[in-house]
């Protein structure tokens, strides 16, 4: 694995960060505050995960007025990450429901 791949890999191996990617993939950019409202975590936790995703070059940020807006970087890496996060999240939910059938 090359050095460029390491951070991306580490960023996506984390379940919470996959959920952040998934949420970003379904919208047109979000702030740390709006993400924290959608996900069960604090704004501080979201900011930490966004920083990790930014270091991995999966996410980029732009100032919009007084806010910092985050979005997935366009391109194959971002698309692949978004597919992984979305499809993975869907199967997490399905298998959880399957598990409940036998609980």
């Amino acid at each position, binding site marked *: *694995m*090359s050095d*460029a*791949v390491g951070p*991306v*890999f580490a960023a*996506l*191996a984390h379940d919470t960060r996959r959920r952040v990617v998934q949420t970003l993939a379904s919208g047109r950019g979000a702030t740390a505050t709006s993400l924290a409202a959608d996900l069960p975590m604090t704004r501080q936790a979201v900011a930490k995960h966004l920083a990790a995703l930014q270091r991995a070059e999966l996410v980029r940020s732009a100032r919009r007025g007084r806010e910092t807006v985050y979005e997935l970087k366009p391109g*194959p*890496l971002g698309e*692949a*990450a978004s*597919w*992984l996060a979305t*499809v*993975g999240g869907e*199967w*997490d939910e*399905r*298998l*959880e*429901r*399957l*598990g*409940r*059938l*036998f*609980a």
Partner: protein
Amino acid sequence: MNKVEREITVAAEPEDVWRALTDEVLLSEWLAPEVELEAEVGGELYVRSEDGEERWDTVDELEEGRRLAFTWADSSVELSVDAVSDGRTRVRVVETAALPVSDWGPRLTALASACALTLA
């Protein structure tokens, strides 16, 4: 990186779990709100998801009591059932997208193999 792998172990016998993967009524309890399945190779699979999206797919492979593979949208999905111990069964799912991985270049190909191994 065009592959998602997940698994769950449930407290049930493999044949009961297999039924949950192949019986339409049980599939509607977990896979999607509405599922119709002809559980045979070449059989039709109809799925309507939460957001109302409908898909008509085909069963590609079926190994009775063990493995079910089908194609939906641009992905192929394989579900398999394994007994892990007395009364416990593991269900494994692998979804592989038909993305052109070869176009991603060497960096992404390396990432793809790394993720296929570890993002399970």
